[in-house]
């Protein structure tokens, strides 16, 4: 059977070309994305950023440890308590580093304040001027010259300082104060930097603080969380794209192979008549698939890793991948995995086609028709209807029961794709009426060609469907997914605006928070009700075993002994909750009330319980009876010079709606790109593989007297009708899907505008039309008018 398989492949290589491309692409994608995953998951963390040159760093206790029956449960603390002063006394020659908020009012970069003696640890040298001599002098790393007098915003407020010198810039640029002024601005010692041997330091410190050496010093880097996020994002995006690549490869290869086997129907029947058992037929099909797959997978898994650097660069440019990784991993497992996946995909995809081929009855070698008669076998009906019902039920459940989840990409994307997949599966059933509808005007008006096209499109539903289905997918996928993404972004922004009904927000602009002086000035604005929000965390012990950190905000209206929790924490109003605050203090708070749905945090506590952080924003409501414009003007005056911005509700909605750089949207674009590549392959492949069938018809037409122009017009019109049917079906599916989403979003955010990206849709439809017309014209050019006997397929 292998000889037979190879002989068939040699003769009919055009039929297998599409499968080859799909498999090679799939393997290449697996190899490239696998390489990206290997790089981002396996690369070591960045070296310590804050203290690269200090060998031993002592920090305060930064973990919360709670004894449970399973042993001590430990989690990192949200807010560190700092090094106790008594401990600092035990290490007299250690440098006390204090890191606190300090920015220049007139500049726009993010800086922190530090004492001058921490300068060597921060890796910054004096470039101009001199060290600060008095407490009113500072050294900056940019934005001013020595001798200038500048306004500096710290936690307490704004004060004027004289610039004594300029230091070299660093990743975490600092404003250096004298040690004394730094101690006054921020009494808490954040770290003790020492150059003594680690063992000696550990002996002196004991258990009151942590001693960090080597890679442990990274714990203090401010970028740790964003680094971890970047790594996670890259892993997630690569992983999702990988999954989709494999899935769509299977689908395209299965469809292509089924088509090819259908075309060889008669040949297979002849083999059966000559004495091939069903098992031998199946093995022959597997052999064909394996030969093609081996070649394709080899090509793909060798070429794929070369694309990995480009992928990584693309992700890094959008801040979705760790940017300190400069060398792509040289591990070889992605290539091997890609090869194995290629073979596995091919075999899986070919399963149904092989089974159906083995069921061909030998008597069909005597029949004239070249394709089995039924365009919609029972299995396709079942699968299509099942998918449709599942999608519709999911949409209904989301709309009725849980509309909030409609704004989450991970929820609605699969439902939309299920709906589109159902439409693709059921397409052959609706192709005939749609084609009839589309061609009715041409039947009368188009002359001979019009009549032929109308008849062909409606009678050979299978052929029209074979072309219309890839077009349906190519148009519906971007139209539905991109529009849905835009709709949910708008809805999320509007919902966010609804759940925070403050008229104005005051937010910091590049500083760690709003300073105390600013908060007082805001409160002094007449006609404004101001609440400042401090972001913090609380820890609860769930089920007596697990410590969970929950985001909490400090709200002035909450008393010191109370807490406002989410309803699903499991407590009733009035119950007492045992919890730990952000700095690890254990306390018990009374549940005051529950949070409303859609709140951005998990609990409200009093500002004192929220800890030492600066307010991250201020909510300002205009008191009834006051003039909103006057209040806004007063707010802006109060915020001037404090590195803060006043944002109105309208500004917020507009900003949120245009913020499109999220990891999930990038993942969506990548997946869309992969899907569209495959549907294009399917489209081109269907046209190429269907050409021999159409060649017979066109031969007949020319023998009957149609000239070359008429035959060409017929070919083009036939393709255009199929594309038109595909576009109509795509519009129907997209309309259904988006209406469902619109209904669900109605309850969350009110009516959301249907913002279809017509440019993208137009471009995609145009591309389909172009392929569907140019390709048959090219193929038509190359076929001769005379033909040999009917045995040359």
């Amino acid at each position, binding site marked *: 059977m292998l000889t037979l398989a190879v002989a068939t492949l040699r003769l009919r290589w055009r039929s297998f070309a599409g499968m080859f491309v799909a498999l090679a692409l799939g393997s290449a994608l697996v190899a490239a994305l696998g390489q990206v995953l290997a790089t981002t998951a396996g690369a070591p963390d960045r070296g310590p950023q804050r203290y690269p040159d200090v060998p031993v760093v002592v920090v305060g206790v930064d973990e919360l440890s709670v004894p449970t029956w399973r042993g001590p449960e430990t989690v990192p603390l949200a807010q560190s308590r700092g090094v106790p002063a008594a401990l600092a006394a035990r290490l007299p020659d250690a440098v006390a580093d204090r890191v606190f908020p300090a920015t220049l009012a007139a500049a726009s970069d993010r800086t922190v304040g530090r004492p001058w003696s921490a300068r060597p640890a921060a890796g910054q040298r004096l470039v101009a001027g001199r060290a600060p001599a008095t407490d009113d002098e500072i050294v900056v790393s940019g934005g001013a010259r020595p001798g200038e007098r500048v306004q500096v915003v710290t936690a307490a407020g704004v004060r004027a300082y004289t610039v004594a010198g300029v230091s070299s810039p660093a990743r975490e640029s600092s404003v250096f104060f004298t040690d004394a002024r730094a101690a006054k601005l921020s009494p808490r010692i954040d770290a003790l930097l020492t150059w003594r041997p680690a063992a000696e330091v550990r002996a002196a410190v004991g258990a009151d603080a942590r001693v960090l050496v080597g890679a442990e010093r990274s714990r203090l880097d401010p970028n740790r969380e964003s680094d971890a996020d970047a790594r996670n994002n890259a892993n997630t995006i690569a992983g999702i794209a990988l999954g989709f690549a494999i899935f769509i490869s299977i689908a395209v290869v299965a469809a292509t192979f089924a088509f090819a086997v259908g075309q060889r129907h008669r040949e297979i029947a002849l083999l059966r008549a000559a004495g091939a058992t069903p098992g031998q037929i199946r093995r022959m099909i597997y052999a064909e698939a394996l030969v093609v797959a081996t070649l394709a997978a080899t090509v793909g898994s060798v070429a794929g890793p070369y694309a990995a650097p480009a992928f990584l660069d693309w992700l890094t440019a959008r801040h979705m991948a760790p940017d300190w990784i400069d060398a792509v991993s040289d591990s070889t497992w992605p290539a091997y995995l890609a090869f194995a996946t290629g073979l596995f995909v091919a075999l899986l995809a070919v399963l149904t086609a092989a089974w159906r081929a083995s069921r061909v009855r030998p008597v069909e070698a005597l029949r004239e028709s070249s394709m089995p008669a039924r365009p919609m076998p029972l299995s396709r009906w079942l699968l299509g209807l099942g998918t449709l019902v599942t999608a519709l039920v999911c949409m209904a459940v989301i709309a009725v029961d849980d509309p909030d989840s409609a704004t989450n990409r991970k929820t609605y994307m699969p439902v939309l794709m299920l709906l589109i997949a159902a439409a693709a599966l059921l397409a052959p059933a609706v192709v005939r009426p749609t084609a009839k509808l589309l061609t009715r005007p041409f039947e009368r008006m188009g002359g001979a060609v019009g009549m032929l096209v109308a008849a062909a499109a409606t009678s050979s539903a299978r052929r029209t469907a074979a072309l219309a289905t890839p077009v349906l997918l190519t148009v519906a996928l971007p139209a539905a997914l991109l529009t849905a993404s835009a709709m949910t972004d708008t809805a999320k922004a509007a919902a966010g605006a609804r759940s925070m009904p403050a008229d104005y927000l005051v937010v910091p602009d590049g500083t760690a928070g709003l300073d105390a002086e600013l908060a007082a000035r805001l409160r002094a604005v007449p006609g404004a009700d101001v609440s400042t929000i401090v972001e913090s965390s609380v820890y609860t012990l769930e089920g007596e075993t697990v410590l969970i950190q929950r985001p909490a905000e400090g709200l002035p209206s909450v008393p010191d002994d109370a807490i406002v929790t989410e309803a699903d924490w499991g407590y009733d109003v009035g119950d007492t909750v045992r919890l730990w605050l952000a700095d690890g203090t254990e306390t018990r708070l009374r549940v005051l009330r529950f949070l409303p749905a859609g709140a951005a945090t998990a609990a409200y506590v009093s500002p004192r319980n929220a800890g030492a952080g600066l307010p991250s924003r201020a909510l300002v409501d205009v008191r009834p009876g006051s003039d909103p414009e006057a209040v806004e003007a007063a707010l802006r005056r109060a915020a001037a010079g404090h590195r803060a911005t006043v944002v109105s509700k309208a500004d917020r909605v507009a900003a949120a709606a245009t913020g499109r750089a999220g990891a999930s949207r990038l993942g969506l674009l990548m997946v869309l790109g992969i899907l569209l590549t495959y549907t294009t392959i399917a489209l081109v492949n269907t046209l190429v593989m269907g050409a021999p069938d159409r060649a017979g018809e066109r031969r007949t037409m020319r023998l009957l007297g149609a000239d070359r122009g008429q035959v060409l017009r017929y070919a083009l019109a036939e393709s255009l009708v199929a594309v038109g049917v595909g576009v109509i079906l795509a519009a129907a599916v997209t309309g259904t899907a988006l209406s469902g989403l619109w209904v669900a979003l109605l309850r969350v955010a009110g009516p959301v505008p249907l913002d279809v990206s017509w440019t993208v849709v137009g471009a995609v439809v145009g591309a389909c039309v172009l392929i569907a017309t140019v390709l048959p014209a090219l193929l038509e050019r190359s076929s001769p008018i005379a033909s*040999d006997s009917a045995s040359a397929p």
Partner: protein
Amino acid sequence: MPSVPVVELSEVTRRFATGVTALTGVSVAFDTGSFTAVMGPSGSGKSTLLQCAAGLDRPTSGRVTLAGQELTALGERRLTLLRRERIGFVFQSFNLMPALTAEQNVALPLRLAGRRPRRSEVRASLAAVGLADRAGHRPGELSGGQQQRVAIARALLTAPAVVFADEPTGALDRNSGEQVLRLLRDMVDQRRQTVVMVTHDAHAAAYADRVLFLTDGRIDGQIVAPTAEAIMIHMARLEAAAC
């Protein structure tokens, strides 16, 4: 020498799902070493008769016995094994696998059975039909008549119990058709091969030892040692009666 029936149909009826009854209670036997032609107006069921006799189709009722085996009792796999060894086919068109050369096509049934026939034997079969020089050509490079002859070479090599031919000369010109019929006749005379041929061409049927006539799914007479004229007269009578 007593003649032994190699294929026997007994009260075979074939009713299709569309309601059409192609054969009604047909009982006929084909003896070893005989050349039988089956004729009839179109729609008479002659192709269906051939398909049932060859095991390509299953009768609705009745029994078919071939080379001592009851075909109607066999499963698909055993039927396939039987087809490899004991049944040969020559169709009107599409006889050969387009991807294989002539000699690969000739050897195909034996290869499917897991045996490798010797190159010399394959060449000899091709030579017997006059195509030894075209052994390495694919069907796309052969004319219709040449393809039929390759199919006959395949039957020669396999030496089956019966060769079933369905309109073997239908698509051929007179000369090629004569060549094919000559070969079939030689197979019967020289190798005691049994041949059952369905045809509508009286001239082709004249090569046979016996001609069976079929009308509306029933046997309607036969002529032994036929001549072309006798056949044509009988056919004309049948067709007149059918109107």
